[in-house]
């Protein structure tokens, strides 16, 4: 099985134009980034068509402003902003994908956000269109964007309390294992079965439910 898979990979390399051309072109971008932000050298990573950089959440506005406004970089278009949850014991990430007409690679900026205190500055000052992205991330993941003037739920109803795309939010199929978040009627904490919760699985939920009921 494993051998077969490797042989497909080898065959796959033949037809790939991007794999041959992109890294050389992305090299210019990597050099520019290193000139501008030498401290990020350890956090740079490149793919066949992507250059990736990891930063602390608090630095996002500073870095994205430079990326957008510096003429040699010119990442003027915010292609995507997404939140990723790396699990209850790990961290959140807010991932920005940027497009520039100067460079043939996507630029991916991964901003780390603490899971215990999920706050990150908003980038709606740089791109107005980040508003719906941030509202969605807040709604689905519970990340707070400081400075965003319209941080409301966008898909779920305003009185909804859970954050459904977190890894510890389980689907109703797995309700037996769920920390009761999101699968109870009307999302009322007084209806939650606290005996099934533990502080490890759902930190803060018990205290929250007790304060509400």
């Amino acid at each position, binding site marked *: 099985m494993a051998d077969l898979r490797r042989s497909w990979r080898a065959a796959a390399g033949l037809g790939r134009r991007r794999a041959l051309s992109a890294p050389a072109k992305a090299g210019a971008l990597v050099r520019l980034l290193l000139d501008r932000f030498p401290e990020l050298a350890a956090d740079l990573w490149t793919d066949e068509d992507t250059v990736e950089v990891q930063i602390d959440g608090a630095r996002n506005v500073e870095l994205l402003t430079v990326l957008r406004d510096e003429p040699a970089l010119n990442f003027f278009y915010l292609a995507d902003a997404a939140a990723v949850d790396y699990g209850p014991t790990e961290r959140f990430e807010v991932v920005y994908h940027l497009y520039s*007409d100067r460079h043939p690679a996507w630029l991916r900026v991964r901003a780390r956000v603490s899971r215990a205190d999920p706050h990150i500055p908003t980038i709606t000052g740089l791109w107005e269109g980040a508003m719906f992205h941030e509202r969605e991330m807040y709604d689905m993941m519970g990340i707070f964007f400081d400075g965003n003037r319209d941080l409301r739920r966008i898909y779920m109803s305003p*009185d909804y309390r859970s954050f459904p795309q977190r890894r510890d939010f389980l*689907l109703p199929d797995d309700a037996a294992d769920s920390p009761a978040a999101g699968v109870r009627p009307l999302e009322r904490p007084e209806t939650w079965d606290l005996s099934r919760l533990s502080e490890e699985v759902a930190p803060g939920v018990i205290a929250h439910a007790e304060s509400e009921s």
Partner: protein
Amino acid sequence: MTSDVKIPDPLDLEREEEARLRTVAGLPPARGPVGDYAGFESVGLPDRPPQTERERQVYTLEEGEMLVNMGPQHPSTHGVMRLVLKVRGEVVIDIDPVLGYLHRGIEKLCENATYTTVMTYVDPMDYLSSMHNEHAPAIAFEKLYGVQAPKRAEYIRALVVELNRVFSHGLMMGFLSLDMGGLTPILYGFINRDEVVDMLSAISGQRMLFNFFRVGGVNFDANDEFFSRLGTWRSGVLKTIDMNERILTDNEIFRGRTIGMGVLSGKDAISLGVSGPNLRASGVAFDVRKAHPYSIYPELEFEVITQSGGDVYSRYIQRIAELKQSIHLIDQIVDRMPHGPVQAQVPGIIRPKPGRAYAAVESPRGLYSVYAISDGGPNPYRFRMRDPSFISLQAIPKLMPGHLIADTMAVMASFDPVMGGVDK
């Protein structure tokens, strides 16, 4: 004649009765208008204090203003969406789009599905461009897994996505005129669309939710019925488009209601994240097929078309130009289509190595992208979709102030949003 008898307000009686019932049932008191909204009796105000600065701004009314709900069930909201219009007479002052009526949590469902079954979940997202919805995950998963689709599969992919673009743009012409009161173009649009979906049904077995793309190829090879239908359609399609164009493009009423309406500048469009034909109609030449070429687009000959107006009419003209361009691309693809297999050898359940992949495609509504993370398991650890109509919707509150209520529909339709994609 004056009277000392105070006639009770029926609404007060209702509230008292509710309070009494709540006491009997042991429920907490009902929530009413509080805080900033206290004193307002207008229907449509949220039954809670404003959560944000922007919400307070929209829902706080001054003398002579009122709130009107357009939707959730409204023919011109292109699905189930509610627009809260703040109006003064016939003039729109502010808009608050309320989304989520169609939210199905597709990203979460995909994170609980195997890589192959993800294709069935993304289909009903933007149901007018299902092929594009499948194209981006297919590319992303192939990057993760390190496999390349055979050449013929790539050509078939490009062929079906361009066909999908043709019927989507054709329908947009119809929907735009329908929202302004013209019924005929939508019928022509559906003639064109039915021919195309019959064709796609011949190749994929489904009319709307195709489930056609696979990791490393496509489900079926193009068959005789497909090519036969393609030939018939191709011989008549330009005529159908021309009929639509003759009704609309030089129509005085249509021009009067679209030219100069809802003007979006290129700078604003970039800032708002508007993409696809809507962005190009504002003069920005950003097309993912050229900017980050995927599939076989580097081998095809086409130019990025732009308009300069940025108004409803430009967005309409842009769609027609792209529709004709797509037909030109379909001709090239059919001419050059090679023979060979259509599916690389990939098992049904794949476990890509841990990694990340980003894939963007140009859907009829703009930049549709997928960010997939693998943790080595049989399903994606994170599956993120960026839907273009969701982001483009932000332009509507920006554009509408100062327009009439009736023009809201024209501007909405010109952005061609699909609520299945907006709400995911």
